[in-house]
């Protein structure tokens, strides 16, 4: 197992090289010149040229790439053109916000998705099933940003129940330890802050979770339907254990195996969905920031972010495979299967 994990982590390297090449090509070869944006309304041709020269943008593309890669290997992703702050710092000051949002979203999506899926499967063709599956269908069909805006209009604008933007009331901002406000506020023992952070999370996390929840619910339903047909479920029932235990301990435990894969895939797609959710909710995360940087042609930041996201994506996939092996004792990763 360990060998397998190491091998998979090593496989990150070619993926990251590939990712960096793609991003590099898109950004440096095709994207608009960042100079006019960086230099503002008084930019002249001369200052644009000087700036490009100073930032190595007049070098041949392979040399630019070489410089970037050598920097990246030593942990230096450069500085943002726009803010002149180190890229790593810019990224990591926003990354926890996205992770916190994505984790809560995947938690919501998994809990409710599995719940709906299980109920739908157990009560197949009942009103619950139909309602659940209709909800799931709407969930995969609704644009996430539209849902987000509707949530804001309803819960913030009309009912004034929940905040519409940001992560926390700045007055309650806990001292940063982990960067996750839910955890940081617990560390500092401030329940007000915890609640406030949680309230800020609800709407964006719900909007972000909707699509994944729908996918997970559908997957859970079909997986459970299949599992409930299995002989070992009959065996379990024959043991005289309660129906709840049959479903929860026997059926779900087996049905979960394909669901975990879906959850893993969804965690990856959540990172994409975060781009839109963060934009709608002014969530101070990496998604909206990246879009802003793409539009500003802030090459170093975009390169850094995409590398980071790709790494996370690959690691999540690896994690899913490991969990898979944990859930399904029949699977043993050997060198062959890599």
């Amino acid at each position, binding site marked *: 197992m360990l060998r397998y994990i190491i091998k998979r982590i090593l496989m990150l390297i070619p993926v990251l090289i*590939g990712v960096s090449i793609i991003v590099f090509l898109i950004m440096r070869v095709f994207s608009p010149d960042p100079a006019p944006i960086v230099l503002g309304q008084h930019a002249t041709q001369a200052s644009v040229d000087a700036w490009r020269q100073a930032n190595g943008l007049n070098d041949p593309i392979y040399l630019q790439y070489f410089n970037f890669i050598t920097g990246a290997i030593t942990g230096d992703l450069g500085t943002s053109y726009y803010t002149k702050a180190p890229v790593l710092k810019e990224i990591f000051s926003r990354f926890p916000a996205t992770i916190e949002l994505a984790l809560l979203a995947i938690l919501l999506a998994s809990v409710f998705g599995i719940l709906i899926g299980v109920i739908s499967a157990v009560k197949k063709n009942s009103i619950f099933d139909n309602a659940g599956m209709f909800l799931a269908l709407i969930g995969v069909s609704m*644009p996430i940003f539209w849902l987000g805006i509707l949530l804001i209009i309803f819960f913030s604008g009309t009912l004034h129940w929940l905040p519409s933007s940001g992560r926390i009331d700045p007055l309650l901002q806990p001292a940063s330890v982990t960067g996750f406000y839910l955890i940081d506020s617990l560390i500092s023992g401030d329940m007000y802050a915890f609640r406030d952070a949680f309230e800020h999370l609800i709407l964006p996390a719900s909007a972000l979770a909707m699509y994944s929840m729908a996918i997970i619910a559908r997957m859970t339903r079909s997986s459970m339907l299949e599992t409930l047909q299995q002989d070992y479920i009959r065996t379990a029932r024959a043991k005289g254990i309660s129906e709840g235990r049959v479903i929860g301990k026997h059926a779900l435990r087996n049905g979960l195996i394909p669901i975990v894969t879906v959850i893993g895939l969804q965690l990856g797609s959540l990172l994409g969905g975060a781009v839109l959710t963060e934009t709608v909710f002014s969530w101070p995360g990496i998604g909206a920031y990246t879009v802003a940087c793409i*539009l500003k042609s802030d090459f170093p930041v975009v390169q850094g972010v995409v590398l980071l996201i790709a790494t996370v994506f690959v690691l999540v996939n690896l994690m899913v495979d490991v969990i898979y092996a944990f859930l399904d004792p029949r699977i043993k990763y050997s060198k062959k299967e890599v």
Partner: protein
Amino acid sequence: MPKDISTSSDKNSIQAAEYVEKPESQLKEMWATLRQNKAAVVGLFIIGMLTLIAVTVWVSELIGVQILPYDPNYSDMSKSFIWPNAEHWFGTDQLGRDMFSRILDGTKISLFVGVAAVAISLSIGVLLGSIAGYRGGRTDAFIMRVMDVMLAIPSILLAIAFMAALGKGLDKAVIAIGLVSIPEYARIVRGSILSVKENDYVQAAKVIGNGDSRIIFKHILPNIISLIVVRATLGVSSAVLDTAALGFLGLGVQPPFAEWGDMLGRARGFIFTAPYTLIFPGIAITITVLAFNLFGDGLRDALDPKSRIK
């Protein structure tokens, strides 16, 4: 999940093997099952309506007949932000354009981008997947590594970067959205081909001395076509969503084309004063995506041997 796909395609291929001479019968059978699926029929009906609207709007535009209540791109600043009424069913937007006409006009864009983007990802994806699956070895490894790389970047981010680099435009949106979903098709096709490849009839074709491309196109692809059709149908729904997302971020098609996502993006500043400008495009997107999802799900069920027995 992966288990799932392989078993269904196995069964599929076994069945397909019997029909190697006339693969269309597989589609025929699919259609028969599909007709019994109410949801799929509803989906197909909506898709039909949307297509009708899109084609009518497009043709009338070509021959210069105005069929929509108003010119969707004609702005009249004196009619800015009129609430829905008998004259303007969905109201007017900031520039005084009739929302109803714009929504109908937008059907054209969304369907076109959706279908065209899928056509791109489908053709390139199928080609790459076929080559990878059929040739195997290094070619396979290389192609699939590239696909892995593309999959490692969230597709919406990739599409945004493409659009930012290429600039706005209908053609560019199609390309951006089409390119980012190539890996999905490549993977499916490769997987199916790997399972079909060893079948006797393919081996037989090889022995007879058929060329590689002939084997792929004549013998292998027809047998996985139903799988691709399902994927493509669901692909249209995600392409429509992606188009809307790009439009929402201000990166979609070149205005003044009425595009639902772009309309939503513009409406965002007026969610309290003119909420109708936000509601209708959102509903239009949802219905379109829903229709393709319903139809795609129906297709998949129709394909699934298990449900066919019922």
